[in-house]
């Protein structure tokens, strides 16, 4: 079988080998490794076999710890098993890695190397995770490119089977795992040749079996453990030989020769860089350049990091070397040097023949760019008379001065390659189209191709930047394009937000999607953009792609249109040939979506060229307009200095001194980022409004708000500001206002959908209606500013009903969550109710990403400076993390009360004040306000008292006011990885509240099934529809009898949701609220999210109830059902969502069975709840 060239990303390249060379694959999704597990599952579900003809079993576990355990068991029982992971996931596997290595069980784990969360989480790439595994004894093999990742997946498997030493094959997260590249694919014959049957037979013979029983995992005592631990020495020592042998056999097969250490450069190099990972490629290209200029430099690329072969290392290193820079992509604070540096120093010392100067250097943390210019700086530093030890490169360190100065003009781009940069919107399909283009070029032309994609941190209105290189020679540039000969801006507004034209190199082609008449586009450009175009003499092409998309039934999908433009004007391929390829790609990609989609795309292709215009560029700038500043001039200093730079994509330029030393970040930053992503925003018809406040409740982004104000407060309001007299008694005489935040609204339309106020003569018109944002923006911006300045309602006067709660100020606003998100309304409500005395422990997941992902975050403060204290620890430990917060708050309150009693008893604090402080009822807003006032009095009294107890109490006095602790996370956390901890916290009896935002799937990592996934739903790892029922977490929690439990759905019964929050808060023990959260992973237009919530409740898919143990004391049943008997059948709900329809479509018979079973289960469950609700204590 001849080998073929394929265009794949690093994850697929590895999975293509791992799936064919294993029998059991146990995984747990974690970025950026998830793709490998997903592909394996997809292939197995389609019956794709491994090289021995068997379909590998792929299982998704509840955590990486679980995946490692399952793999360990499979290995012990004699199967070839693997797993894929990264970062925290790898840390959870470490205990099993020790065991698997200790038991000498052949096994390859594939790791997309990713940053470990420290002062902050990062999903991006460095070696901090793999370096944490060094002490396990696992062999560590580093691949540097997509091709190498493919090759090493095979070599690793061959070496582990030959040697019995488990291998961790790792490659850089994102940079390699997500880079799309053209590679030569290994055939089944290649793999068979590399994995001889004899090695597999040996594995089988060692398997644990009752037919020839053994014991593994004994407990050993001081007499023998040490010796037994040393017994495997020879096997570890032999490993490098086995690895080199595998590499040599591989070379004989494929012609690609690798060594444990590969040296490239001048044979008599004096300066050498030692490095592993994708950065090695960059160093190699710089070495080639410098050597061609006569410099004696080289690079030693580390392939096998552990076991570290001193012999192989020394023989690869030129004896002429005088100075070495060892580059580590990790940071180990407190160590003499980072890990690779230490090993190199130790190796030189052990060998003893060479005595070069050795510098340690750190680069590339969390996918920080590592460019030829930075490598050049490293070589320059090696030549310096007093080089920096333990330097950093790629950042500006103005605190410890460790960073190297980089000459940014040094570039090694291939002159004959096309370098193209595309600015797109997540939703416009730019990245997908570019991936298509790479495939077309990589697979249908002799060109090499590379694609890398940079994503925004936001989930709605997200910006994507695609970096594509094509050329006749292999592309070895694992870094972003700085200057491009083709730049495309798929969203006109981006020109004012980002320095798009900064990518233009002289004479570049610039493609712009601009609304309206092409001849008017030049006048709409800012002076800066015009200047850049003139200076670079760019050839500018313009198209109104949205117009073409609308006319051809493509909606907002401009991907195909812009792709046609790219091929038409970039010259990568002859135009006709390109269009044929595009159409073929469309057919391949979309035929599964139906002919209508294919035809719409074809129509778009055919219509495009007639709408593409070359712009005549004037010789001089005609515009006077400059883009508005990134943030308002009113923003605080930190926002101006730091956040604004990050928002402008200039975060890389911020120096070390700009940052807090411990990751602490200010609250309330989202309000300074005005994203203006909605094309339409709600407009309020005050006359029609019935003042129900439901719009404010359902808004996921706190972008439509309600307020009451005195008529006097409205004096001087802007011209278009609207208000009407308030209709209720409680704020009689005041004015009522609904106001939209025009630049924060995402245009999701939930507010319009929920609005019940219809015009009786024309019911199509409601009190809220979507209208184009642009003409309204300026006036509404002014209105919103005026609205925000109006006094907030007195919290002590607010009733607890649904309407009144919406007058409370939200302290969670303008998050980056998806438009129409079903989770954020709950969090917003939480901050409205308790935000000023709230501590939130947030599990990793969607809610931690839209809650804490920089540059701006949504948690904010009120006018008193109070607001939620928010922290994210990990994915798996969130319940425990929140419990810790509770314990700390309680402990401090206890201590403050003790000190207060001491001061009262010794006469230093007035007895009445002290007693009121100690006995205060803080269950109401009024009680809380009174306690805060007493604390102010107390503090004033304590100051200057001169007593040690008073000093200590002064620090702790705020602990005398109540603190609410809420533990927030998704179903992946609560049902799966964090369930053990959650269960323990529920059993603890402590006063914590747990809010589970249940989307019934791992939303953040892209739709993998969780134990909350319902029967019949398709999800990754349950493509044919989940065959088991959703775990009834509520029922499990109710079994304790002491836990407050509620199941809510704000779209179905908002009053019940609010009541549940209030009861949970009032319950002095643990509370659990499971909140139905519609999600893009359900596959429908979220504008209908509220309707779906109603249907979910009506059909019994999601029964509503509250289980309050306090009711038992009153002789009542703890459980109250808040929804009626199921009506209409689950199918009515399910058929509206693609997650179910996919199953119905693909497997109609199976769907019928699953639906029937789900229906029966729902009925039985409801009857059980009914029975519980009837049962008196």
């Amino acid at each position: 079988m001849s080998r073929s060239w394929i265009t794949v990303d690093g994850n697929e390249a590895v999975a293509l080998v791992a799936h064919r060379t294993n029998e059991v694959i146990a995984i747990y999704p974690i970025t950026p490794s998830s793709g490998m597990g997903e592909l394996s599952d997809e292939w197995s579900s389609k019956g794709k076999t491994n090289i021995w003809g068997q379909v590998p079993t792929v299982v998704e576990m509840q955590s990486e710890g679980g995946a490692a355990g399952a793999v360990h068991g499979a290995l012990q029982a004699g199967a070839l098993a693997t797993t894929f992971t990264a970062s925290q996931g790898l840390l959870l596997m470490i205990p099993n890695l020790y065991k698997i290595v200790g038991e000498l069980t052949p096994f390859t784990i594939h790791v997309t190397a990713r940053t470990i969360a420290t002062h902050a989480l990062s999903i991006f790439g460095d070696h901090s995770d793999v370096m944490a595994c060094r002490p396990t004894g696992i062999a560590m093999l580093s691949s540097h490119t997509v091709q190498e990742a493919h090759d090493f997946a095979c070599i690793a498997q061959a070496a582990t089977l030959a040697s019995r030493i488990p291998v961790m094959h790792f490659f850089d997260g994102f940079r390699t795992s997500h880079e799309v590249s053209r590679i030569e694919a290994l055939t089944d014959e290649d793999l068979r040749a590399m994995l001889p049957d004899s090695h597999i037979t040996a594995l089988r013979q060692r398997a644990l079996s009752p037919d020839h029983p053994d014991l593994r995992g004994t407990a050993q005592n001081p007499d023998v453990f040490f010796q037994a631990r040393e017994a495997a020495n020879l096997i570890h020592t032999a490993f490098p030989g086995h690895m080199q042998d595998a590499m040599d056999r591989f070379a004989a097969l494929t012609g690609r020769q690798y060594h444990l250490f590969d040296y490239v450069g001048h044979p008599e190099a004096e300066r050498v860089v030692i490095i592993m990972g994708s950065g090695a490629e960059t160093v190699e290209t710089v070495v080639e350049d410098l050597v061609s200029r006569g410099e004696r430099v080289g690079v030693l690329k580390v392939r096998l990091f552990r076991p570290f072969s001193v012999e192989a290392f020394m023989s690869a290193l030129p004896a002429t070397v005088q100075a070495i820079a060892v580059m580590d992509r990790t940071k180990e604070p407190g160590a003499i040097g980072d890990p690779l540096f230490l090993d190199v120093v130790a190796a030189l010392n052990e060998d003893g023949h060479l005595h070069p100067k050795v510098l340690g250097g750190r680069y590339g943390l969390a996918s920080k760019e590592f460019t030829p210019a930075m490598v050049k700086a490293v070589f320059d530093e090696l030549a310096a008379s007093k080089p920096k030890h333990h330097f950093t490169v790629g950042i500006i360190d103005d605190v410890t001065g460790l960073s190297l100065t980089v000459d940014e003009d040094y570039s090694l781009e291939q002159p004959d390659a096309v370098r193209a940069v595309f600015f797109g919107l997540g939703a416009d399909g730019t990245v997908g189209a570019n991936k298509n283009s790479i495939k077309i070029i990589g697979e249908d032309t002799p060109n090499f191709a590379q694609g890398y994609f940079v994503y925004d941190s936001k989930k709605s209105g997200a910006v994507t930047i695609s970096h594509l290189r094509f050329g006749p020679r292999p592309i070895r540039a694992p870094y972003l394009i700085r200057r491009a000969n083709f730049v495309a801006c798929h969203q006109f507004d981006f020109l004012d937000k980002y320095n798009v034209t900064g990518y233009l190199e002289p004479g570049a082609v610039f493609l712009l999607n601009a609304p309206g008449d092409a001849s008017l586009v030049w006048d709409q450009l800012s002076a800066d953009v015009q200047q850049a175009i003139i200076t670079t003499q760019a050839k500018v092409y313009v198209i109104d792609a949205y117009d073409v998309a609308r006319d051809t039934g493509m909606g907002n999908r401009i991907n195909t249109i812009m792709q046609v433009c790219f091929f038409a004007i970039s010259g990568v391929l002859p135009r006709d040939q390109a269009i044929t390829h595009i159409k073929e790609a469309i057919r391949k990609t979309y035929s599964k979506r139906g002919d209508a989609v294919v035809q719409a795309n074809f129509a778009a292709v055919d219509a495009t060229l007639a709408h593409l215009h070359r712009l005549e560029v004037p010789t001089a700038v005609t515009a006077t307009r400059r883009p508005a500043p990134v943030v308002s001039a009113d923003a605080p200093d930190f926002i101006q200095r730091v956040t604004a730079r990050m928002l402008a994509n200039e975060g890389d330029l911020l120096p070390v001194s700009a940052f807090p030393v411990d990751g602490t970040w200010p609250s309330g930053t989202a309000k300074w980022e005005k994203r203006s992503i909605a094309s339409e925003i709600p407009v309020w018809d005050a006359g029609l409004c019935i003042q129900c406040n439901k719009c404010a409740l359902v808004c996921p982004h706190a972008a439509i708000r309600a307020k009451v104000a005195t008529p006097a407060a409205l004096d001087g309001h802007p011209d278009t500001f609207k208000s009407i007299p308030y209709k209720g008694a409680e704020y009689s005489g005041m004015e009522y206002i609904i106001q939209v935040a025009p630049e924060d609204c995402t245009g999701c339309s939930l507010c319009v959908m929920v609005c019940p106020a219809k015009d009786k003569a024309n019911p199509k018109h409601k009190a809220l209606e979507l209208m184009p944002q642009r003409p309204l923006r300026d006036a509404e911006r002014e209105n919103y500013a005026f609205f925000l300045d109006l006094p907030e309602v007195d919290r002590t006067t607010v009733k607890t009903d649904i309407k009144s709660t919406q007058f409370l100020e939200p302290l969670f606003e303008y998050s980056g969550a998806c438009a129409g998100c079903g989770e954020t309304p709950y969090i917003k409500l939480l901050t409205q109710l308790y935000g000023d005395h709230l501590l939130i422990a947030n599990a990793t997941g969607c809610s931690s990403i839209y809650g804490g992902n920089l540059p701006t975050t949504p948690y904010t403060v009120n006018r008193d400076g109070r607001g939620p204290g928010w922290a994210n620890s990990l994915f798996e430990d969130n319940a425990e993390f929140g419990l810790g917060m509770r314990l700390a708050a309680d402990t401090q309150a206890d201590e403050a009360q003790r000190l207060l009693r001491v001061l009262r008893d010794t006469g230093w604090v007035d007895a009445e004040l002290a007693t009121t402080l100690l006995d205060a009822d803080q269950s109401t807003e009024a009680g809380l306000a009174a306690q805060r006032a007493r604390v102010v009095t107390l503090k004033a009294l304590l100051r200057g008292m001169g007593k040690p107890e008073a000093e200590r109490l002064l620090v702790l006095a705020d602990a005398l006011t109540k603190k609410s602790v809420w533990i927030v996370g998704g179903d992946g956390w609560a049902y799966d990885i964090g369930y053990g901890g959650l269960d323990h916290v529920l059993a603890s009896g402590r006063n914590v509240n747990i809010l589970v935002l249940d989307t019934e799937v791992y939303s953040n990592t892209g739709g993998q099934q969780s134990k909350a996934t319902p029967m019949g739903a398709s999800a990754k790892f349950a493509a044919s529809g989940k065959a088991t029922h959703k775990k009834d977490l509520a029922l499990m929690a109710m079994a304790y009898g002491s836990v407050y439990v509620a199941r809510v759905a704000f779209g179905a019964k908002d009053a019940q949701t609010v009541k549940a929050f209030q009861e949970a808060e009032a319950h002095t023990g643990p509370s659990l609220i499971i909140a139905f959260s519609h999600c893009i992973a359900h596959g429908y237009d979220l504008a209908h999210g509220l309707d779906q919530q109603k249907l979910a409740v009506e059909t019994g898919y999601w029964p509503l109830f509250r289980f309050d143990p306090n009711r038992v004391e009153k002789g009542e049943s703890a459980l109250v059902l808040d929804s009626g008997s199921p009506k209409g059948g689950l199918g009515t709900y399910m058929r509206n969502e693609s997650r179910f329809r996919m199953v119905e479509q693909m497997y109609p018979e199976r769907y019928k069975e699953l639906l029937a079973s789900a229906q029966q289960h729902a009925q039985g469950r409801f009857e059980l709840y009914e029975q519980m609700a009837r049962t008196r204590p």
Partner: protein
Amino acid sequence: MMDLSTTYLGFRLPHPLVPGASPLGWDLEMIRRLEDAGAPAIILPSLFEEQIEADALGTMHHMDVHEHAHAEALSYFPLADDFVMGPDRYLEHVHRVKTAVSVPVIGSLNGTSVAGWLAYARLIQDAGADALELNFYHVATDPHESSAEVEQRLIDIVASIKSTVRIPIAVKLSPFFSSLAHLARRLDLAGADGLVLFNRFYQPDIDPDALSAVPRLHLSHPDELLLRLRWLAILSGRLRASLAATGGAHSGLDALKAVMAGAHSVQMVAALLINGPEHLALARRDLSRLLKEREYESLAQAQGSMSLERCPDPDAFERGNYMKILQTWRVR
């Protein structure tokens, strides 16, 4: 044993009572029960082109739109190549029904575009259908489209489909044409092998509290048969195409009336949905009994006997009857 045989769309059927297009047709078990109850042919529920397109485009707009937008989630659904948003499921069903039963299987199609009508008609034929019912479920809401244009579109589609497929086609019409007899004749000339009278539309109801329109579909009532009888009677004997009644035939007696008015087959839906597939056998026995009681030799003898051409009182089907009733109206 009464001879109930009839010819519809060229098929010789042992009796005229055919289960019409209904949800029963989605269920293979139900279809088997219908056959056991003596169904002489099976008409499957309609393939809706509009639905297929809406599904496909909906998928594009609500699923694909989230792909490749965030670093952690390049997609949100399994890469299911088998998740084909197209007619495959329907076609598979046609094939399975065809394999499961020995009587003729009639597919049903509701198209929106000329290309769609043609393509799906061919696909349904290729999937094994013995005949095709074209379900012209169309509510003419466009004030710019004339009745002539609506009719012409219909004729064109029928003519094109006839030139594309080899199986017989029946055209299911609504009663809302201003010159139905003329249209029927044109359809006949265009090659239609049968006409099915009449389609029943979803009737939007109004919720005065929610100020919303509520789509409803009530099962047919025997009263609705009268409209069918009139038009069967008017068309009977004037066309080459065979005629089918649908809507309001619940019993053997209803069937007898429809046959007398000119129907070659009588489709039953509501009565089967209410009483189960076995009701068909009962209606057949009734039909046989009714003919016997009236001393008919065969169904053929009764077929079209009360048409406009043969009816002793043709005024009843025409305007005259209205006049007569008005004239005889007396204030009590």
